[in-house]
Structure formats: structure tokens, C-alpha cells
């Protein structure tokens, strides 16, 4: 079997299939992780005491336990209590929850950096606390948290490769199978590396564009 034939008819189709699965893991996990992270961070900063403790415990747990272990719990552990998740769903759930814990740290820091007067002014105008958080505090905090959250999404792209551990065959999983059949480890994983690099670069570009789009006078990032 010639090199080119192998590349065109076996490696590329398999890797592209894997790439699609990877993107299918990353996109929902990034979105859900960010939304959940905003909720957790808001609860930690503005929640009533029980909610605040709950949110802190969440962060400690999901940042503290290795992601592989979390994946195993969702996929292999839950059936013991009668809940069966597909490999794909188990992976998306694990990635979202873990990602949310990291997002919440960046966002919490940003929430704390917003001056007290902003909320006071909102309350003085008759805003409820919830309205104040939503329309005054979060739009500012998220602008400040964006670089950190972007970083977390970049990480997510890379740790999405753990999904193959619970038999969700994404890019890395396809590559493993290909390589173990053909013994072309170097070639296969070189291409895989390039594909991850491409995903990360594109994500970086997109995040940069979002940052520029949301930039406002007083919220620019100065490069000194």
C-alpha cells in the first residue's frame, strides 16, 4: 500500500471524522462551561451564604479531581446508580462541568474587581440586585475576564482529547486506532498535532476578534 494511497483513503477520512467529533465535543462544552461558570462565579460573589458555599465546594471539587477520574465517574460510575450516559454525552458533561469550574475562577476575580459603587448606583436607581448583576456588573466583569476565559477554552480544545478514554472516538481516538493498525505513529500523530494546532490558532483568532469587538474606552487592554 503506497504512502499517498494510505494518506488519502485511510488516514485523512478517519482523522476528519475524528475532527468532527472533537468539534462536536468542544463547541457545546465551551458554551455550557462558560454559561455555568458565570452562574457559579455570580453565586460565589453575590449568592446567599448556602448558595455561596455550594458554589465554592463545586469549584474545589471540579478543579481538584483529575479530569480523567471525572470522566470515568460520569461514564463508568453513574450506571451503578442506574444512569447510563453515552460516551459522547458523558464527555460533554465532564468537560462542561470541569471547564465551568475554571471559568468561574476567572470570572470571580473579575467580579471582585468591579468597584462597589457600580452596584450602589444601580440599587439607588431602583435596580434589583439580580438586575444590577446582570446589566451592570457582569457586562464589565466579563470584559475583564475574557483573556482568562479564552485561555480556558484553548485548554478545553486540548483536553477534549481525553474523551477517547471513555470510548468517545474523537480525533485522538481515531489516531490511536489508525496508528496501532498501521504502525505509522509518527506520521499519524504529526498530522494530529497540526490539526490541534490549527484548532487552537483559529480559536485564538476568534477570541481575539471577540475581545476587540467588546473593547470599550476604559476597558482596553494596554500593551506597555
Amino acid at each position, binding site marked *: 500500500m503506497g504512502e499517498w494511497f494510505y494518506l488519502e483513503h485511510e488516514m485523512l477520512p478517519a482523522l476528519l471524522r475524528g475532527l468532527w467529533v472533537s468539534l462536536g465535543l468542544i463547541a457545546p462544552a465551551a458554551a455550557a462551561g462558560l454559561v455555568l461558570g458565570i452562574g457559579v462565579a455570580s453565586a460565589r460573589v453575590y449568592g446567599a451564604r448556602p448558595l455561596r458555599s455550594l458554589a465554592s465546594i463545586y469549584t474545589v471539587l471540579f478543579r481538584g479531581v483529575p479530569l480523567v477520574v471525572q470522566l470515568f465517574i460520569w461514564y463508568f460510575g453513574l450506571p451503578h446508580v442506574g444512569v447510563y450516559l453515552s460516551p459522547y454525552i458523558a464527555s460533554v458533561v465532564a468537560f462542561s462541568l470541569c471547564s465551568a469550574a475554571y471559568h468561574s475562577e476567572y470570572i470571580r476575580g473579575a467580579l471582585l474587581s468591579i468597584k462597589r459603587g457600580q452596584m450602589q448606583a444601580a440599587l439607588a*436607581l*431602583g435596580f434589583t440586585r439580580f438586575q444590577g448583576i446582570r*446589566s451592570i456588573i457582569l457586562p464589565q466583569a466579563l*470584559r475583564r475576564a475574557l483573556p482568562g476565559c479564552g485561555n480556558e477554552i484553548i485548554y478545553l480544545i486540548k483536553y477534549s482529547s481525553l474523551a477517547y478514554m471513555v470510548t468517545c472516538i474523537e480525533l485522538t481516538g481515531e489516531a490511536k486506532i489508525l496508528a496501532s493498525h498501521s504502525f505509522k505513529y509518527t506520521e499519524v500523530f504529526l498530522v494530529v498535532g497540526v490539526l490541534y494546532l490549527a484548532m487552537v490558532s483559529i480559536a485564538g483568532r476568534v477570541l481575539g476578534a471577540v475581545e476587540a469587538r467588546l473593547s470599550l474606552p476604559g476597558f482596553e487592554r494596554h500593551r506597555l
Partner: protein
Amino acid sequence: MTAAVPILRAEGISKNYGSKAILKEVSLALDRGEVKVLIGPSGAGKSTLLQCLNLLVMPDAGRIWLEGREVDRSRRKGLYGYRRQVGMIFQDFNLFDHLNALENVRIALVRVKKMDRDAARERAMNELAKVGLQDHADKYPAQLSGGQKQRVSIARALAMDPKIMLLDEPTSALDPELIGEVMIVIRDLVQAGMTMIMATHQIGFAATLADEMIFMEDGAVIEAGPPAKLMTAAECERTRAFCSKIGELYGESA
């Protein structure tokens, strides 16, 4: 409702931080169109009193009536509704940093008063015009001078049609050359009949506006009366000492 009912009445407002009594049973009442000025040394409790009157800080004791109706602060609806009717101006402006001048004025109209966007925009533009900032509507707080920021914050409060305004040292954070433009806006407000309580160290300026001056120290009202009396013939020695010192400090005739 008779004319005799004060717009705002507060009785026995007390506030402690830890074991320290910051406000000791302060009471006051304002009739429609009345202007009262709070003076007193730093740490006297002026800011705390104003924030308690707006229930931004919850007093430990005391009752508040707005137009004769007691504010029920245990109910959220009552609390938010009350704050909406009481305008507040802060020393350091507290403009919403992510919104331009127009949006700063507009947002509460949309979110709190539930006005539709276009009507809110028009109203916000009118309020900005009243403080002379119609040409700066699309500037962000970071692009405005201190005086302009404070004028936007006044426009923002006025757009809510408050029944009374609380001003906490509205000119203290400003460079001397910017104080005048804010004073003019406040003077116009008084002439338009706004009821207000203002804490300030500019007692010369305050005296020209105030119906009554209230001297506070250590969380209590020491003396209150017409400005002329307080500044020249105060009954209390401490009031006299404070007025003459602050007169020198700010180069105003006391």
C-alpha cells in the same frame, strides 16, 4: 394628602458598625421644595446617614416615611420602589463604566421604569441636554472630565423623576476649576423646586441654597437652623468652630 405632610420623614435612624455607633437616633423631615445641607467634620456620619435614608445601608433602627407612607423595608418590592423615587448623587459619580453617557441615563428607564427603548432614549437625551451635555452623549465615562461625569450622574438620577435627591459631596472629587459647572446644575435644580439633602464642605455655596443647615458630629445632629444663623451666630461652640475653620479652608466667607 395635605400640604403639611413632609415628602421625606425619618425618625430615630441609628446605625452601628461593630460596637461603634455611627448614627445615633437621627431624625429629620423635608417639605416639598425644601433644601437641607448637611455639614460636619469627616467621619461625622453624613454619608452613612444619606445611604441609610436611601436604604442602601440598612439602619439598625429607625423609620422612614415617603409622602406620609411608611417604607416597608422588609418587602423587596417596597424597597426597590422606594429607592427608585429617591435620587442619589455620589461623591465619585459611580457612572456605569461600560455604558456611554446616553446609555447611563437610559438604562434605568428601560430596566426599572420599563419604558420602551425609543421613549427612554428621547428622555435620556433631554436630561443630558438639561445639564449641557447633549454633545457628549456617546462618550464613555473614561472619556469625560470629572465635572461632566457628575453632570451625567445628575441627569441619570433626574430621569427617574425622583421625589427627593440626596447628594453626597457632589463636588468633593472635582478639580477646583470643574466645581463651578456642577454647582450651576445643582443651583438650577434647586430653583426648579427639587427637594434635596446635600452633604458638602462648600458651605459658602451651600448657604446660598439651603433653607436649613444641619451640623452633624459623631453620628448625631448637634445643631440645625437657617444658614445665616448657623454660620454667624451658632449656639453651639463646636458648630461655630467648625464653620470658621471650614470657611478658612475653602476660602469662602463663613
